[in-house]
């Protein structure tokens, strides 16, 4: 692997991060509405006038505390300084919780649920798609193709609602929401793990099923074009076993574009499957992001979006680095 290639890719990755941080800084400040005043207005509404609150003075105090009274350019540099120290500030809606705390509490749930289900969905979907393109499979299996097309068009949150209704509310086989039984303490034992898996089953199923269709369809398309290649014909002529041709000629070559998509999908995992997490009230990043957007919690939104951008950038960076290893035709030097 040439040093120049790695340096080049790393530079691009850093550039993406810099741009992302900048855009991330700018966008929430372009949204109309003042978060401090909004928060205080809510507060004064709930306290129903029993306390005498000087809204203007309080707003001023809060603005100073969060640094929102400074010139934009200064805010920008402060923002950079904080990010490099992994300080994303305080949550506006759950003050005094810090954004880093908030994110690190939610991240493992999302990585576990969405990351694992995305990967399972990818594996099953790609294998299924590859098989569906293979000429010598039972005709019955081909009936799957229209089913997959329908499934790939059904959004995963809709599947989630159906699953909740049938298996949680009517069937009572699985919990309807949450990541673990409410009030239980999380320890590293079999009971806790079982509880977590039971809670993850329905959201994971909806993500897996909803993903399989599109993975399978794109894999099937690739496989069909690969099967038309001359090297497949020669592999058959060589008398290779069918399994070998399927895996090492068909799947191996069709997989290349799929892996790029997988890298992107795994990058997106950080933002969680927002709607699935909301429906299942799963305490992941997606749910957190949803809440933060609703309460105009600038700093949390910024923190999560930044995480998302870094994760996607990082996934693509890693993909760039390993792609020449999985496809020898891509050369480090020329990229």
């Amino acid at each position, binding site marked *: 692997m040439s040093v120049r290639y790695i340096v080049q890719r790393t530079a691009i990755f850093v550039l993406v991060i810099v741009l992302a941080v900048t855009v991330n800084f700018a966008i929430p400040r372009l949204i109309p509405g003042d978060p401090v005043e909004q928060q205080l207005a809510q507060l004064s509404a709930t306290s129903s006038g029993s306390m005498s609150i000087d809204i203007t003075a309080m707003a001023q105090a809060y603005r100073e505390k969060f640094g929102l009274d400074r010139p934009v350019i200064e805010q920008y540099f402060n923002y950079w300084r904080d990010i490099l120290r992994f300080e994303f500030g305080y949550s506006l809606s759950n003050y005094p919780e810090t954004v880093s705390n908030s994110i690190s509490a939610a991240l493992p749930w999302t990585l576990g649920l969405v990351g694992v289900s995305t990967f399972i969905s990818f594996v099953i979907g790609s294998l299924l798609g590859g098989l569906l393109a293979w*000429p*010598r499979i039972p005709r019955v299996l081909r009936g799957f193709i229209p089913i997959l097309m329908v499934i790939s068009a059904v959004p995963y949150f809709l599947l989630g609602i159906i699953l909740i209704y049938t298996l949680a509310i009517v069937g009572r086989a699985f919990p309807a929401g949450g990541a673990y039984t409410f009030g239980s303490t999380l320890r590293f034992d079999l009971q806790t793990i079982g509880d977590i898996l039971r809670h993850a089953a329905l959201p994971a199923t909806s993500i897996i099923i909803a993903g399989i269709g599109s993975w399978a369809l794109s894999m099937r398309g690739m496989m069909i074009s690969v099967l038309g*290649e*001359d*090297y497949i*014909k*020669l*592999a*058959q*002529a*060589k*008398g*290779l*076993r069918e399994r*070998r041709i399927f895996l*090492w*000629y068909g799947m*191996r*070559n069709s997989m*290349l574009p799929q892996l790029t998509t997988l890298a992107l999908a795994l990058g997106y995992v950080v933002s969680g499957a927002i709607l699935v997490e909301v429906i299942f009230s799963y305490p992941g990043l997606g749910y957190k992001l949803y809440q933060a957007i609703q309460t105009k919690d600038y700093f949390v939104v910024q923190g999560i979006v930044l995480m998302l951008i870094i994760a996607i950038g990082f996934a693509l960076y890693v993909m760039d680095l390993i792609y020449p290893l*999985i*496809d*020898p*035709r891509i050369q480090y030097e020329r990229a």
Partner: protein
Amino acid sequence: MSDLTLKVDNLHVHFPTPAGVVKAVNGVTFTLRQRERLGLVGESGSGKTTTALALMRLLAPPARIPHGSMILDGVDLLALSEEKMRQARFAEISMVPQGAMNSLNPVMRIRSQFVELFQAHGQFTSSSDIDARIASLLEQVGLNPSVAGMFPHELSGGMKQRVCIAMAVALRPKVIIADEPTSALDVVVQRQVMETLGRVQEALGATVILVGHDMGLMAQFVDRIGVMYAGRLVEVGPVRTIFRTPKHPYTQMLIASIPTLEQKKLFKGIPGVAPSLLNPPSGCPFHVRCDQRLEHCSRIVPDSIALSPDHWVACHLYPKEEHHDQPA
């Protein structure tokens, strides 16, 4: 010329389509002796490649072989189980592919593509032994043994085709089918590749079937030529005879259409187009374009008759009676 190696008898290949059955190969009969080189020539769609693929039983579904037999050293390939046929491929009857550029798996090193071949045929012994075999095969086709460590995209078209030739002879097959092995290469490389193919074939004592439409290449390489038209073999004979005294009107027109350096006159093509294999013309399939057509040509399909023990033609111009009775 010794024993018969391959005997193809009355081979038919049908492709069922929504519009009807396409008869791509329609009663092809020929035999091959050991070490012999047979050329199959004909227009696009005349069934040359389909015949070649049928010999390896590599026709993709829905193609069917409703009649015929293909006997290789006493074994009817059409009667073999799928697994036995798989084992026979490359071990008994191998192939040099048409598209040299894309015939190797782009993500595997050349060495691995040899190794999997030996493995598939239970001939994998030890790594060092296999490496030595690969090196000697590569040397045999004029390549440096270091090519084994390379990926296909690092090789030129000619080098890839040499790798394919080395693979085709790796298991010492009795028959090698070369389906337009040089169609993707320039003429200089073409010549080198054909010389390599000829050399390894002679070293091996194998039989070659060369499929193509390059008459110049045929003249230089093969011993006998079979001319195909509309899924039928219309004339088979020694290469000199075919070039000097072609008998079938189609062969005559084919030979007349080859441009030469001496002749300055406008060279002649063959009028008309190849017939539809879905609704072939009645009688002799060539009668529509034939300039020596007889009255019954459009009604009766001509049988193949021997003009000499080695020269067969399927045409009504040559009366049946005084000739031999079995195609040779």
